[in-house]
């Protein structure tokens, strides 16, 4: 199982990760071995097997949709690398 350099770049773009050339080359090399490990599953017959998304016995845990104030919301905003006027600040999106 091999993965091409272009494929590594495509996945990095989807994952919003900027990779250096060295990193991209490393992952290209390593992904082959990891995908080989995953390919073990192809030998398993799962035609009649349903999928398990969660092992929890719980389902649809509901509660009233009631708003509760967060104490000191400014503490949350203070975590942001940049904020202004009670908003998160990001680079200009529309030129």
């Amino acid at each position, binding site marked *: 199982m091999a993965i091409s350099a272009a*494929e590594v770049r495509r996945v990095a773009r989807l994952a919003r990760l900027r990779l250096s050339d060295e990193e991209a080359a490393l*992952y290209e090399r390593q992904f082959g071995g990891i995908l080989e490990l995953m390919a073990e599953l192809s030998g398993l017959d799962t035609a009649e097997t*349903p999928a398990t998304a969660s*092992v929890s016995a719980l389902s649809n845990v509901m509660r009233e949709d009631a708003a509760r104030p967060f104490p000191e919301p400014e503490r949350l905003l203070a975590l942001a690398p940049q904020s202004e006027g009670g908003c998160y600040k990001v*680079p200009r999106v529309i030129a």
Partner: protein
Amino acid sequence: MTPCAAAVARDVRSGRASAESVLRAVLRKARARKDLGAFVRLLEDQALAQARAVDAKRGRGETLGRLAGVPVAVKDNMLVRGVETTAGSRLLQGHVASYDAAAVERLLAEDAVIIGHTNMDEFAMGSSTENSAFGPARNPWAPARVPGGSSGGSAAAVAAGLCPLALGSDTGGSIRQPAAFCGVVGLKPSYGRVSRRGLIAFASSLDQIGPLARTVEDAALALSVIAGADPGDSTCSAMPVPDYLQDLGTGVKGLRVGLPREYLAAGLDPEVEAAVRAAVEALRVLGAEVREVSLPHTRYAVSSYYILAPAEASSNLARFDGVRYGRRSPAARSLAELYELSRGEGFGPEVKRRVMLGTYVLSAGYYDAYYAKAQRARTLIKADFAAAFQGVDVLAAPVAPTAAFALGEKSADPVAMYLSDVYTIPSSMAGNASLSVPCGLTKGGLPIGLQLIADSFCEGTLLRAAAALEAAVPFPGLPEADRA
């Protein structure tokens, strides 16, 4: 020697010791053993204030909690309000938690003292605590070896006597494997037993918080405190929390112990196998009925786990976008660059590898072959355990194929590292309760752990069996001379 948590709580409640004196002794040791890299930050001032508050509470004649004055370390992926919490990542350097994790809240409500954050593989991705932005942690039994991971700092701290109790998190073995490598008790509760509010998420269908301790009693005590329903975590079960200490000493007479044949197969170190078999024999001598069982889909666990966990991680870690918290690249000129550069600069190599893998297996054209297939394999793995628990109460198995490996030994080969989780991943996939209890030493003097697995929400059975083994086959602990 650092007394165990139960003894500290008894002494602080009775007034034989003050919380402050206990804390000061522990902090002295922790400061003296910085070489272990067990802590990423000690919260000395805050802990001192907490200890003094516990002593003042006793001074006023108030009843103290179940963990009165017990110094507890928590893994760096659990939020402690007002304190930097970084999940071992450069991306989160400077991130100050705005609330306490539920587990931390519960510790504090029982008058524990939070002494610091322990070292970990970045975002809990790893089996050696080498993937930390703070540098690796070391095994107190052999400093050239890893303490295991990802809760390696918690295991090393408890083993070296830097604190009597620590919390870790376990996604595919991250409590049990470091507990085995460091010769301490590590418990991964059933999925849904402990609230994960305030735990920085890795793979949400698998993550659980649990204790690392020197004694089974301390692990039981800690679980009694942190387990139970929480409206802030909808995956947390409302199932009542039993008093795990109550039945601890009732023995294993008639307990049905299963030995899964797929776990005692090729690839298992002979010394580890011998120690595991000896521990099972000890349980048999104590009155347990031992039989061989089969978990036929064991061989598909690692491959399906390394599809599902990275897939969930790629989604969970999308929140680290350089906008609301964490690192923002100063070089970014556009929003797209802000995401790509902040994440590219902030995440370490293993986190990037898993985010990439997760993105790949979820991407168009690959989803059915990988993600959907792995979810089906998970059904079969879970069914194996359900069938086994029809006939036995507890499964006994190795925790890891070998004792602690050397630093650097597996770090260049992700597949070799992933395969070190081969015995802990299956029960994680099934959501069962499992623990690691020390069961011997290799000829080279490295700890070996016995893994016990019980059906979901049967932690009591697990702890009872571990306590019986602990009493029958005393584990030496780290020699006093090597302690802080």
